[in-house]
């Protein structure tokens, strides 16, 4: 009976079967009530399921603008986002470039400032006669040391630059400037970079080694740039007219000596009791090579002692 009731309610009967069943329902009150109860049960099951499905659909986000317009809005939003990201990237890049330019400018300024200090201290060392200059030297050196404490760890100047045109002429009287003091003042302002020929006073103790003063090539006195925090620990190079030293000179002073040798200027680095030749033609980072020539070492040492 239950199966027939279900078949009737699920409309699985043929027309003939259905009409026969309905006649039975009409005649059988109990059957009629049972059919109605089963119908209510099936409707309850249906309602429960519809409720569950509708609840699921209610949670789906929709709007009247869904569909193509939403897609268009999405595309527009993505395009705006991409545009903003591109603009942001461009501005960031520009900012980086300007920072680089300004940092390069700052480096140049620092180099120039260093150069002034070096030139000043260097020029002082040219002259041996003035105590005032020595005092100035003493004043200058702290300045250089203070530079070490500056914000840029790479640009330091801890030493002094000295340039000496060692004039060697056994027989000739050494050249003397008529006004040494005036020379010293000019030295303070315009060091050897200007090309002036600053000479030490004649010193009979100087060995005779054939150096001649007859030819006076242009001074090589470069600006010096110190770079401490590089992987190269004791190297150098010449770049853009500057001498770049890759080393840590924070503990000891260094000197750059300029030697007039066989009509050519030669630069040497004096550091820690040793001398290192500097080839001004070297543009790549090159290790500093210690001077082994005993005669040359003696010359350079004697010069240093005379200061």
């Amino acid at each position, binding site marked *: 009976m*239950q199966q027939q009731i279900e078949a009737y309610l*699920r409309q699985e009967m043929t027309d003939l079967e259905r009409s026969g069943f309905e006649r039975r329902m009409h005649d059988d*009150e*109990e059957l*009629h*009530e*049972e059919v*109605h*109860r089963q119908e*209510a*049960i*099936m*409707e*309850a*099951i*249906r*309602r*429960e*399921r*519809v409720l569950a*499905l*509708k609840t*699921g*659909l*209610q949670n*789906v*986000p*929709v*709007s*009247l*603008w*869904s*569909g193509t*317009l939403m897609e268009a809005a999405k595309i527009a939003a993505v395009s705006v986002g991409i545009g903003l990201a591109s603009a942001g990237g461009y501005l960031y890049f520009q900012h980086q470039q300007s920072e680089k330019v300004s940092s390069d400018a700052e480096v140049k300024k620092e180099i120039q400032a260093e150069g002034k200090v070096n030139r000043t201290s260097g020029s002082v060392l040219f002259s041996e006669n003035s105590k005032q200059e020595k005092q100035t030297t003493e004043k200058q050196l702290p300045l250089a040391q203070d530079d070490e404490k500056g914000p840029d760890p790479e640009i330091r100047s801890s030493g002094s630059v000295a340039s000496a045109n060692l004039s060697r002429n056994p027989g000739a009287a050494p050249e003397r400037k008529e006004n040494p003091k005036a020379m010293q003042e000019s030295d303070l302002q315009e060091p050897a970079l200007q090309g002036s020929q600053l000479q030490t006073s004649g010193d009979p103790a100087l060995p005779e080694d054939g150096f001649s003063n007859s030819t006076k090539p242009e001074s090589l006195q470069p600006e010096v740039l110190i770079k401490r925090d590089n992987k190269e620990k004791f190297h150098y190079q010449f770049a853009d007219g500057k001498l770049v030293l890759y080393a840590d000179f924070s503990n000891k002073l260094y000197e750059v000596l300029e030697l007039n040798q066989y009509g050519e200027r030669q630069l040497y680095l004096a550091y820690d009791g040793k001398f290192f030749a500097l080839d001004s033609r070297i543009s790549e980072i090159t290790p500093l090579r210690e001077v082994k020539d005993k005669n040359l070492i003696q010359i350079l040492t004697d010069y240093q002692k005379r200061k």
Partner: protein
Amino acid sequence: MTDEKVLELIRSGNEKALEFLYRKNYRMVVRLIMKNSGTEDEAKDVFQDALIVFWEKVRGNKLVLTSKISTYLFSVAQNLWRKELDRKLRNSGEMKEGVTLPEWERQEKVELIQKCLKSLSETCRKILTLYYFDQLSMVDLAKEMGFANADTAKTKKYKCKNELDKLVKTIYKPTDFQD
């Protein structure tokens, strides 16, 4: 998602297909109803009913689709809304207090039976829903529930239905369902 894929998902009982159709066709159907004196809420309700009709027919293998699903849904929603408008028109000329007493009593009985249904186990509820709402065959029911075969599904369905009948009989006498 193609129409074929949607139908395949519905046949396997995947409700995500319904959600897809809902999102895709919402604007079209709701605007149709709103242009015909309906509010958005009414339109939403009608569209959900249309989707459920579609679900039942596909699940019960009673649908032969000769057009796109969107077109079918559109026409079902139109029909449902037309019936609703007719019902409103009829109601406006009849009792304005609401439904008739017999109808109200019937609805009350159905709601009580829904409560009985909720007291059944999850498995029984699912079996009865798949059989009476989705109108699956015993073979399909066995497959969906993971039963060994159609006979097992038939036995389990019988047991669950008996349990529900007993619960309903505790609430209502047979005479409560007289006309």
